[in-house]
Structure formats: structure tokens, C-alpha cells
């Protein structure tokens, strides 16, 4: 059927002419630009021979988008049997009955992503659950009020990225699930108008967004499969199309086929770890939309997207980068690392144990829920998405039984802790490539139009190869950083060379290194686990100290001479790394000490600066290398720094500029001008009165660590090349504690 059938055109006109006093004025886009954008949307879609079809079990049935009637019956039966579900239901039911639509919200929803995210994505879809569970006429009327309000808006994103931004994707999902929930209660004419409106927006989103026909020049989310921006749009498209795919008179075949291709694409390049290279904060922000897309597709089309291991494993990044002592996170990337705000985007990670039936994982996630989901008065809040994702039939094991360490192979990162209690000592280590492995695999398999490695969005990644972060009882020792508004290596606990950090640093939004393979810049080399939670992890980041950008000396703003002719921009240059090797090996001896060993070789004399970013630093006995870190909460941890070269020591300011607030903290700096240096840093978070000596004899060094009740000798043999692990063996009373050998190669990617 033609999209512009006269009857439907009339419906469209009626929709457009519904009297409204609140229709939003577009922001950041002119009427001419709107017209020009809409002219890019073709009047009809291509005809496809065999489009994906709704399963027989859902065709003609509603609800079916977020849930089916059968699933609601199952949920209804479970609610009285489980206190979490019961409370979540009661909270939702109470709130829904009190719901009163603020007519001014429409303007906010269609002109600003943030209210669309918070409301259209975060709150209003809950009414669909409320109505499905209670069949309360008042809730139904609230839903109809929302649908009416949205029908009155010509654009669901009246912004520069017209009807194709993240906000429109949230609005589409909201309307689709609400429409789906009250489908059978709607007047046919009204139902038809909503369905047509959903199709209109699906077409606009697809053509202006996915097909990149919109006028806005920055195509920031269409270039790779992993940005959460794209996942939100997938969900908006999926919800809209699946809600109306069997409506008579609406032609959705082509878009359904494209939706299927899009979901295939997103899941094909989704890491098996389900991780997010942008950090745990952005993982929480994006995961639900990809998960709900997969669920909606499986529920309605019979696909098997949910079998992707990423959905089973995604929860781990949330749990392993969380600090129970403070509720903060300790994540890399663009994570502000505040106390974890457990809210509607958190329960989706419960899909992991729901799929695997892992009671321990369920317990770990519920522990985060109990600790993090609090109102100001301390009462537990029950986000409505618990109803969707919490499966009490899994059962709840003991969260303390969860393995205290985990390697994220796709990220090239690991997290380790001595326990899961509030007083835990937690260490994280990262030496993966920008973007993680799966994204880089995409970049090199699916080349760009110019035949070069594809552009990928790394905007939220940090130049953080071979960096550590550490905490004790929820307080940061080595700060993980904030949502940095300028991403610099020198704010992180790793090294700089001649004042410079790692390649592509310095941008508010990190860009990929053109043409080169970022997997060669930094990667894990060694990984070994041993008895008693002992662990060795090793990374290589020698090549990360290359340079790409304007020629040195021309990076800053040009001198302003009004008389001078404007200077043509200097072309970017690439220079090889100034380091031949930067090998960092971290020895995790839980309950006893942490030892960080660095082996750095430069291409000539360079100022190599070891940096440790801490809340408060102090020199205790410089002649013995003794230092102390004091956390914001006043906890003290001793540190000893030794080197095979005569190093200097400084305590300087470190300003962390964050999107959601700044922090002025301190930094240990241990510079030395040399062509090769080894550093050994000993940390004593368990107060074992540790001290160490370091003796270096060329390719092998010996580190002796003494503490209360032990004397360990570590033989540290340099790696033979940049790929092979170093050989490191620790002995106590003649017995091996743990040993990293050349065979203990860390996984790189899946």
C-alpha cells in the first residue's frame, strides 16, 4: 500500500491540525531547514519481497512490545511470592495512580534529549506495566493523555538533528509501548492516528538518521555499531515498528527488513563480554536499550539475539567496577565515578543471571540494588524496571562467593579485590586499545569508504594505557579519574614522557588514530592467577607514546596579529613512539601487598615521569623511598618507590576537570631523564609494614619484599620482546608464590 494513501493523508492532516497550545517551537533549526530535512524522506519505501514477519503468536495481539499478556500473567503470579517484586509493584502502582500529565512536558521532550531520556525513557513507559498489571482506568487515561500530547507534536525531536536524535528515539519507544499497552482500549480512529504517527517517525528516523540523509553534518552515531546513541535509536525504531507491523494499511516491510539488518549488525559487533569501552557509567546508560531491542525482536520475530553472550556477561563490568564501601564506581573512561545511582537503567543487568541462572551473580547485583537504591530518607526505592528484569526464580546465592577478580579481555582490563565487603581493597588495571578489541575488529574488517580503517566513536575513552586505579573501603587511593572534559594521560596513574602523554590525548572527545591499528598501541601481555587470590597482570604500552596532530610547536592558538595574513592550517603529522617499551606488571598479593613494576625503554634520553594521582600525598622518608597516601576519608596507606636510576620526587597538584564537577587533588611524580629505567612501587594497604629492596643487574632485577611474617623474593626478568610476558617469579621460604612465565599470555579480545 502507498504510504500517502488519501485516507492516511487525511489522518495526517487531522493530526497536524489538532488544536494545541503547547506544541513546541523548534530549537536550533529553522523552518527552512525543517522543510529541507523532510524533503530528504522519500514519499514511499522500496517494496521488499520477503520482509520479516511477526510470529503467529503475536500477530494481531497486544501487548507484545515490552511484554505479552502471557508474560504479564507470569509476572502477576510471581509478584506475591517475592518481596522485591511486591515492593516494585506497589511503588509503581501507587505512583501510576497519582500520575498527572504536565502538559508543558511535551515541549521539553521534543526539544531536549535530557528530559526525553529521563521521562520518555525513564518514567512514562512504566505506565504500560502499571496498566497491564492493574487495568486501572485512571492509568489508561493517563496513557491516552500522553499519546494525545504526542500526537499534537509535529516533531518528536524539533532540534538540529530533526526527528533523528536520541530524544526522538526515547519518545518513539515511549509512545510505542504505551500504545501497545492500551491498544485494545483505544478508539479505532485514535489508534490509527497513533500508528500512522509512529510510522512517520520510524521513517524519519530511518532516513534522516540511519541513512544519514539529515542535514546536520556531524554523523556521530552512525559510523560504528557500539555507541549507545545508536542503540537508543534501534530501540525506538524496533518498538515503533513492532507495535504497528500488522496494522492494516501501513506498509512496514522495508523498514522491518532494515531493522532486522540493523539489529544483526549491532549484535554482530557486540563484545562477548558485554562490556563498554566508555566505562561502567556509559555501559549502564546504553545497555538497556540494546537489551530491550534484542528482547523485542526475539519476542515478536522469533530471532535469537538474546543468546549473544554479551547479554549474559554485561553485569560483570557493573559489579567489578563498583565499590561497596562508598557506593562509588572506580571506572575508566567517561565515568564521573560518583556513588552508584541505582535507577531504572540498573535492573536490566539482572538479565545476566536470568539467562544463566547464576545465583551468585544475582546476589551480587541485588547487593548493588540494596546498597544503592535509596531515597534521601534512606528508604529503599524499587525502580519499575525490576518488574521487567528481576527474575526471582533464579534464586539468590552469596555475593561474597563471587570471584574477587575478573579479566575483561575485550577491554584489556582487569579488576581485583580482596573481598566483597565494604572494607575491600580494590585495584583496577587497564592496558587495552582505545575502543576495545571488538570495535577495532570492526574498524579493520569493515573499511571506510576510502578503503582505510573505519571511523569509530571513541569519544569517551581515556589515554590510559598501563594505568592503575585503587581504592580502600570505598575511598580512592589512586583516583580513576572523572568524566574528563579534556582527556590527558598526565591526570592518570601511569607515565608521561617529556611531558607528553599517550597518542590522541588532549581532546574533550577522543578521536581514533587515523589509519593505524590501535591494537598495536597498548595491550595486555601477561595474566596469571594463583592460590589465595594472587594474580599477576601485565600490559605493554610502548607504542602509545607516538604522536599524531599538528606539528609540535604549532598546537596552541596562533599568535594574533591583525595585520598578518591568515596562516593555512598545518597538516597533521604522525611520529613514532618515543618509547621502545613500557611494560607494567602488577602483582596482586591480597592481604599482604601490591607491587607495581615498570620497565621502560626510550629511544634516547627522555624525561620519563611516573605519576600516581592520589587524594593526598606525603613524603615520609625519601631516602628510603617511603611515601604515604591519605584518602579523602582519612585512611592512610604507605607506599614505597624505588628505581634502578637516581630519580627525583615531587608532589604536585592534579586538577581533574569533570563534566559533572572538578576535583583538585595531588599527584606523586617521579621523574628521571634517561633512556631506560625501572620503577618498583610497593603498596601496603593491609598494613603489613612492608619494605622492599630492588637490585638490578641488566635484564634481571630482584625485588625483596619484607612484611609482618613474610619475606618474598621476586625475580623479575625483562621480556624478550614487546609481545611476550616478562618472567617474574615470587618465592617465600623457597616455595613459589606465583610465577608469570612466557606462556602466560593474556587474552586479547574474545
Amino acid at each position: 500500500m502507498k504510504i500517502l494513501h488519501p485516507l492516511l493523508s487525511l489522518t495526517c492532516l487531522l493530526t497536524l491540525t489538532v488544536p494545541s497550545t503547547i506544541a513546541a517551537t523548534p530549537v536550533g533549526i529553522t523552518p527552512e531547514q525543517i522543510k529541507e530535512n523532510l524533503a530528504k524522506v522519500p514519499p514511499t519505501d522500496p517494496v521488499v519481497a520477503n520482509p520479516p514477519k511477526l510470529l503467529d503468536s503475536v500477530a494481531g495481539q497486544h501487548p507484545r512490545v515490552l511484554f505479552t499478556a502471557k508474560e504479564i500473567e507470569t509476572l502477576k503470579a510471581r509478584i506475591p511470592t517475592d518481596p522485591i517484586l511486591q515492593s516494585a509493584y506497589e511503588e509503581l502502582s501507587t505512583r501510576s495512580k497519582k500520575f498527572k500529565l504536565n502538559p508543558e512536558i511535551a515541549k521539553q521532550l521534543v526539544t531536549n534529549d535530557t528530559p526525553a531520556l529521563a521521562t520518555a525513557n525513564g518514567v512514562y513507559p512504566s505506565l504500560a506495566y502499571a496498566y497491564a498489571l492493574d487495568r486501572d482506568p485512571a492509568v489508561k487515561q493517563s496513557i491516552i493523555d500522553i499519546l494525545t500530547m504526542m500526537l499534537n507534536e509535529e516533531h518528536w525531536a524539533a532540534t538540529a538533528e530533526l526527528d533523528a536524535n536520541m530524544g526522538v528515539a526515547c519518545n518513539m519507544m515511549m509512545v510505542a509501548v504505551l500504545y501497545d499497552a492500551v491498544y485494545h482500549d483505544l478508539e479505532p480512529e485514535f489508534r490509527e492516528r497513533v500508528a500512522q504517527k509512529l510510522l512517520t517517525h520510524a521513517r524519519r528516523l530511518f532516513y534522516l538518521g540511519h541513512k544519514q540523509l539529515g542535514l546536520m553534518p556531524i554523523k556521530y552515531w552512525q559510523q560504528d555499531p557500539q555507541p549507545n546513541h545508536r542503540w537508543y535509536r534501534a530501540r525506538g525504531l524496533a518498538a515503533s515498528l513492532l507495535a504497528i507491523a500488522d496494522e492494516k494499511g501501513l506498509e512496514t516491510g522495508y523498514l522491518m527488513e532494515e531493522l532486522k539488518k540493523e539489529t544483526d549488525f549491532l549484535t554482530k559487533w557486540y563484545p562477548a563480554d558485554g562490556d563498554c569501552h566508555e566505562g561502567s557509567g556509559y555501559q549502564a546508560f546504553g545497555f538497556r536499550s540494546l537489551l530491550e531491542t534484542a528482547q523485542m525482536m526475539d519476542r515478536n520475530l522469533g530471532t535469537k539475539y538474546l543468546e549473544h553472550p554479551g547479554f549474559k556477561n554485561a553485569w560483570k563490568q557493573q559489579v567489578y567496577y563498583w565499590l561497596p564501601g562508598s557506593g562509588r564506581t572506580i571506572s575508566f573512561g567517561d565515568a564521573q565515578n560518583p556513588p552508584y545511582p541505582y535507577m531504572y537503567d540498573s535492573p536490566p543487568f539482572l538479565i545476566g543471571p536470568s539467562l544463566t541462572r547464576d545465583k551468585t551473580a544475582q546476589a551480587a547485583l541485588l547487593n548493588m540494588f540494596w546498597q544503592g537504591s535509596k531515597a534521601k530518607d534512606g528508604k529503599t526505592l524499587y525502580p519499575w524496571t525490576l518488574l521487567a528484569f528481576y527474575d526471582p526464580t533464579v534464586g539468590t546465592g552469596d555475593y561474597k562467593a563471587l570471584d574477587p577478580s575478573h579479566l575483561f579481555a575485550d577491554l584489556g582490563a582487569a579488576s581485583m579485590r580482596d573481598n566483597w565487603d565494604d572494607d575491600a581493597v580494590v585495584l583496577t588495571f587497564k592496558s587495552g586499545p582505545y575502543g576495545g578489541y571488538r570495535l577495532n575488529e570492526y574498524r579493520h574488517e569493515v573499511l571506510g569508504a576510502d578503503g582505510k580503517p573505519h571511523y569509530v566513536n571513541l569519544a569517551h575513552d581515556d589515554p590510559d594505557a598501563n594505568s592503575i586505579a585503587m581504592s580502600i573501603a570505598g575511598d580512592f587511593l589512586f583516583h580513576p579519574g572523572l568524566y574528563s572534559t579534556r582527556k590527558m594521560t598526565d591526570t592518570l596513574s601511569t607515565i608521561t614522557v617529556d611531558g607528553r602523554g599517550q597518542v590522541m590525548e588532549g581532546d574533550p572527545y577522543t578521536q581514533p588514530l587515523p589509519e593505524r591499528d590501535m591494537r598495536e598501541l597498548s595491550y595486555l601481555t601477561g595474566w596469571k592467577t594463583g592460590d589465595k587470590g594472587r594474580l599477576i597482570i601485565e600490559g605493554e604500552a610502548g607504542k602509545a607514546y607516538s604522536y599524531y596532530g599538528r606539528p609540535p610547536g604549532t598546537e596552541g592558538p596562533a599568535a594574533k596579529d591583525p595585520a598578518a595574513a591568515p596562516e593555512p592550517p598545518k597538516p597533521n603529522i604522525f611520529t613514532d613512539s618515543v618509547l621502545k617499551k613500557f611494560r607494567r606488571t602488577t602483582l596482586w598479593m591480597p592481604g599482604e601487598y601490591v607491587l607495581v613494576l615498570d620497565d621502560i625503554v626510550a629511544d634516547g634520553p627522555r624525561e620519563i615521569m611516573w605519576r600516581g594521582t592520589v587524594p593526598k600525598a606525603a613524603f615520609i622518608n625519601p631516602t628510603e623511598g617511603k611515601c604515604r597516601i591519605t584518602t579523602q576519608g582519612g585512611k592512610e596507606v604507605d607506599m614505597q618507590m624505588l628505581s634502578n636510576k637516581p630519580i627525583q620526587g615531587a608532589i604536585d597538584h592534579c586538577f581533574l576537570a569533570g563534566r559533572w564537577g572538578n576535583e583538585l587533588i595531588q599527584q606523586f611524580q617521579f621523574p628521571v631523564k634517561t633512556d631506560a629505567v625501572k620503577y618498583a612501587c610497593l603498596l601496603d594497604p593491609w598494613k603489613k609494614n612492608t619494605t622492599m629492596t630492588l637490585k638490578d643487574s641488566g635484564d634481571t632485577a630482584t625485588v625483596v619484599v619484607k612484611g609482618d611474617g613474610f619475606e618474598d623474593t621476586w625475580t623479575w626478568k625483562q621480556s624478550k620482546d614487546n609481545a611476550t610476558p616478562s618472567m617474574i617469579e615470587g618465592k617465600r621460604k623457597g616455595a613459589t608464590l606465583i610465577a608469570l612465565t612466557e606462556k602466560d599470555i593474556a587474552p586479547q579480545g574474545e
Partner: protein
Amino acid sequence: MRLFHPLNILILLSLACLPRPSQAFEVIKDINKEPVEKLVIFEKGKPADHLSFVDDANSKLAFTEDGAIECRIVGNAAIKPLIKWKGNGLPDSFKLKEYDYLIVTCRMEGTSKVTNGGKTSDQRAANLWFPVCLFNEAGEVLGSASLADPTPDKRTPDTTTVLKFPMAQLCFWGPGQGDVSAVGFNWSKTHDNITRDFRVVIDKIAFAND
């Protein structure tokens, strides 16, 4: 004695092959020591004839009766009041990197009048994001930081507080170089439904080193 006697060479070689003991470190900087004031631009109660003000109706600068500097902020327009100096033994300008700190003793009193739905209320955010700035002769900002940044609780102080701004913080967003010839503020325009009603009282402006 022959320096290059084979025995000597053997001894030297043996020494070279011996394990080298570890090195600790020589301290070259510690910011935990109290910074030392090197250049005082203004101090309440002391002569201030060397100062001149650049202001406008929304950010009037004046001396208070007890000799402090007051900046009265009203309206909702962008403001850029400057305090400049000449003479009194001070250099007309100096390199940004000559000092490690800007120290400002001040407080910021007042609220914003916010009108929503016909109702007006007094509001004051914890961090007002009101930035103290360093300027060059052309009035360009060389460094900028919120008054709340150096406070432990990240609140804009409403009682007199000594604020130490490390250059690492102050210059984070600036060009990192240039000649300082004025200290002042640079506050963007705010929303039309907001009217500022603030008073910044400055007791001292100084530059210091570690």
C-alpha cells in the same frame, strides 16, 4: 700504577656486573608546604591608590567603608569586571608561569531571583560557578576557576575565606602562557528568568610560590 692494567679492567668489569642497589629519590617539590606570598596586589586596610577598576552597571566595583573591594552584581547580563594595577612597586604585568598560586581572600553574598510560573524565589546553588580570572592587557582570559573549586566542600564561600588557586587549576582551560595585567571575574549571561543579586567582597589578592 697503570690505569689500564688488566687486573684493574677486570675489577671494573666485575663491578659493572654487580647488581646495582635501588635508588630512592631526591625531593624537588612538595605542594603540601604553605605557599609563600610573593606579590600582593591588594590588601584591605592598605593603600590602594595603585588600583583601577573596569566595570559596568551590572558589576560595579568599589571600595567598602572598611577598605575591602566590593563587586556588586545585578541583572542577568554577562559581566567582566577587572581590577588593574600600576605602580606601588608592582610590575605592570608578569608572566603567568612566574607564580604557583593566585590567593584571593573573599566571600560572595547573595542569591539569584528566579521567576517561574509568575512566582519569584531566592535561590543559591552550592557552586555558583562564578569564576575568578586572570587577564592580559587585551582583556583576554588567561586563567579561570570557580570560587568553589579550591574549597573542601566545593561550595562558593559566603563567608570570608582564603582561596588558594593553584595555577595548574586556574590555567587548565587557558592558553597556559601570557602576561597577567589584571585580576577579575568573567560570568556568562544567565537565563532571562533569573536576576542576579550578589556582592563579592575581596579582602586580599596576592600571588604566591611554593
